[in-house]
């Protein structure tokens, strides 16, 4: 049976009224979970598993996977409208998305994000159908050594996030790396910089940190004027302009590819995918200075990558039986609870189920688009709430969101600390994005290096032994050199 026949069979399964309903419910729940603070995609998927226990296996899996990639849509909404990331991977969208909202382009940002997400998700699903085998082989090429080099490449893109002052960007990057060191170290497993607090043993929780740096800092800044003077973001046209659409094509295409590839690699998170997409878009762009001021590319790329990653992460589950991220691990638990062991043999044993679920990914992505586009009008109306009330609502959701990550008030304190810090940093004109990039990539980088050393028992040449790793490292060096030259040239030009 070739792929086309399988897919047709799959559609016949997925288009049954019951399965369509499950796909719809899953998509709706997923979006809701993405919008709501305090529930990340993993927790949200987990808590709905018992509900699906009474459904037939195919329906249950359809619904759960729909929830999974649906959460990516929801997270965008609060990032754009309120500068509060709905979940980790949407954090980068705050930077340009919120700026766009302030300029009255919120509807545009959300629409492009929805369309990009749809294209990204569909692309990843097509990749799953036709290229599952070769793509999986690519994913397997990434061991600790290649991972480390990939992280180095990601960090080298940091230079591109610099903006006006390279010095300040570097300081933020280094600071972020130091923050990444908090927790149990990968070498000894002893606590490092935890001040005796158990909650820090696993490192800083990412969501409270970004909620503070973005959301709370923003509110503190607004508090400088009387709150009734602050206008909520303006409600402009809901439809993107032709220029915006044109500008989004490239980022969406690249985001789809990047997101799918990164989703394949176990250990690569959606946040990494969206951040790397942002950094890449800024590096490639002819007008990098637009980033941070409301560039549509800064929304289109990451949001597409985000969704492509979520769908791409499902590939290893089907081809290798390995969950590529914690949320997919929850999904895998659902498979097991339904008596199904995910893996390549499932294609032979239960072709109807497997292809039905895959076909439902297409349907789910379409449903999400249909669900979310009209809703944009409603979400954007939320901006009409007077800021004197809105700010309190935002703070409430931030408290719940920070608390809900680990059921701990400590995370609320972290959020407050970083809120204050973000506020001060803005005053001194420090860019926030580098902290986040290094905070995301840092822990993994150190851990991967440690593993590489364990593999080679201390021999650094292992980093160059693999051609893939060597290539990544060389590209990193090239990027670093060209970025430095460019910034030196720019500052010379400024002085002249």
């Amino acid at each position, binding site marked *: 049976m070739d792929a086309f026949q399988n897919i047709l069979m799959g559609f016949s399964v997925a288009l049954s009224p019951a399965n369509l309903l499950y796909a719809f419910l899953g998509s709706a729940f997923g979006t809701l979970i993405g919008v709501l603070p305090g529930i990340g995609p993993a927790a949200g*998927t987990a808590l709905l598993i018992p509900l699906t226990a009474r459904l037939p296996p195919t329906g249950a899996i359809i619904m759960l996977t729909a929830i999974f990639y649906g959460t990516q849509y929801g997270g965008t909404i609060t990032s754009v409208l309120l500068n509060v990331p709905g979940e980790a991977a949407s954090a980068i969208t705050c930077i340009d998305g919120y700026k766009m909202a302030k300029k009255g382009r919120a509807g545009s940002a959300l629409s492009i994000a929805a369309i990009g997400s749809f294209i990204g998700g569909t692309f990843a699903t097509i990749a799953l159908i036709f290229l599952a085998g070769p793509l999986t082989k690519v994913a397997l090429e990434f061991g600790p050594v290649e991972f480390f080099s990939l992280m180095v490449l990601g960090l080298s893109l940091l230079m591109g996030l610099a903006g006006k002052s390279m010095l300040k960007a570097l300081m933020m990057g280094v600071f972020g790396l130091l923050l990444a060191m908090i927790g149990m170290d990968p070498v000894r497993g002893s606590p490092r910089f935890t001040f005796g607090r158990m909650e820090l043993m696993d490192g800083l929780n990412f969501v409270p940190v970004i909620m503070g740096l973005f959301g709370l800092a923003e509110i503190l800044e607004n508090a400088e004027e009387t709150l009734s003077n602050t206008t909520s973001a303006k409600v402009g046209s809901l439809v993107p302009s032709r220029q915006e659409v044109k500008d989004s094509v490239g980022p969406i295409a690249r985001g789809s590819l990047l997101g799918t590839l990164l989703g394949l690699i176990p250990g690569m998170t959606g946040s990494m995918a969206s951040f790397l997409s942002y950094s890449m878009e800024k590096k490639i762009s002819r007008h990098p200075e637009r980033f941070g001021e409301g560039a549509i590319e800064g929304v289109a790329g990451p949001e597409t990558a985000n969704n492509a990653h979520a769908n791409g992460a499902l590939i290893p589950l089907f081809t290798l039986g390995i969950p590529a991220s914690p949320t997919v*691990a929850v999904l895998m*638990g659902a498979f097991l609870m339904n008596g199904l062991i995910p893996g390549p043999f499932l294609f032979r044993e239960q072709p109807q189920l497997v292809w039905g679920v895959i076909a439902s990914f297409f349907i789910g992505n379409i449903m999400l688009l249909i669900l979310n586009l009209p809703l944009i009008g409603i979400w954007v109306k939320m901006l009409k709430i007077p800021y004197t009330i809105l700010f309190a609502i935002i703070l409430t959701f931030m408290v719940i969101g920070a608390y809900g990550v*680990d059921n701990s008030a400590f995370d609320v304190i972290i959020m407050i600390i970083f809120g204050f810090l973000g506020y001060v940093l803005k005053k001194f004109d420090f860019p926030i994005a580098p902290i986040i990039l290094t905070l995301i990539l840092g822990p993994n980088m150190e851990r991967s290096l440690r*593993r590489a050393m364990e593999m080679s028992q201390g021999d650094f040449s292992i980093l160059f032994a693999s051609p893939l790793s060597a290539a990544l490292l060389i590209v990193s060096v090239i990027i670093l050199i060209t970025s430095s030259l460019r910034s030196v040239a720019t500052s010379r030009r400024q002085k002249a």
Partner: protein
Amino acid sequence: MKSNGFRKFVVLAVLACLALVSTNVGAQTFPAKGKALTMLVGFAAGGSSDAGARILAGGMEKVLGTKVEVVNKAGASGQIAYTMIAQAKPDGYTFGLASLPGIMVSIMDPERKAAYKKDDFQPLALQVVDAGVLAVRADSPYKTVKDLVDDAKARPRKITVSTTGLQTGDHFSILQLEQYTGTKYAIVHFDGASTAMTALLGKKIDAYSGNIGDVLSQLKSGEIRVLGVMDKEESPFLPGVKTFEAQGIPLLGGSWRGYLAPAGTPIAIANILSDAMKKALELDDVKASMAKLGLQIRYMDVAGYSSIWNQYGTLVKDLIPLSRQ
């Protein structure tokens, strides 16, 4: 206007009664109708530890007729949840999952700076023995444990073996293997089964140390071969796989998952909880769900689990300094 003073009195009296009511819990009526039990799980929702706990919680609800709420407090390899269990009120309404050797290591290794000691807990019951396994790729030259050990003797510290984390049960299993056979491996610590398994399949490491539940999928698809299982008996989930003992190495390893209450919980209540767990594990749907996840039920009551709990320290004592090399 005299009603002001009277009103105050009534309010105080009502509050006093409520306070009394809330602190009055007797073993005769445990668990009180409508009062929920809290099961603390120090691992992320959806993982195999959490899944096993939730299955049990569901079974206990049926047996006891009260709600059993699973509360996840993941972090620091379970240490955060363990601290909460130790510090909870010892009235039987709060208890939690404990994974050996993990929890014992956190107690005995001073670098972990645990806020609890062995005697801060009242053991309730053992639920699962998830035996350790050693696996290699299907195309690997190693067909038995002996093949691997012989090669390790010839090339010390060259064979890479993965674990799912520093100081986990899998790590200790390999340390014990090194001790018993006089061999040395390049031990590589990942964080969890999926990254480690990916590395195995991607030919980045030579052998995989983990639990039965980790390898079921890849075994079924024929991508890996399990060299041995670290238990007294062969596992029903791994047909044809010999124990390490049968292959000449008396190695027992894996995760032993049970439940603890804070010390000071009355024995009568502990027994009620333990008995409820036993009955839950005998329910058909609980047995079926555990089997689907590859979790082998092994129940021990308060006395049985307590003796394991008290002796486990000696088993891992020597391995802790080794694990820090």
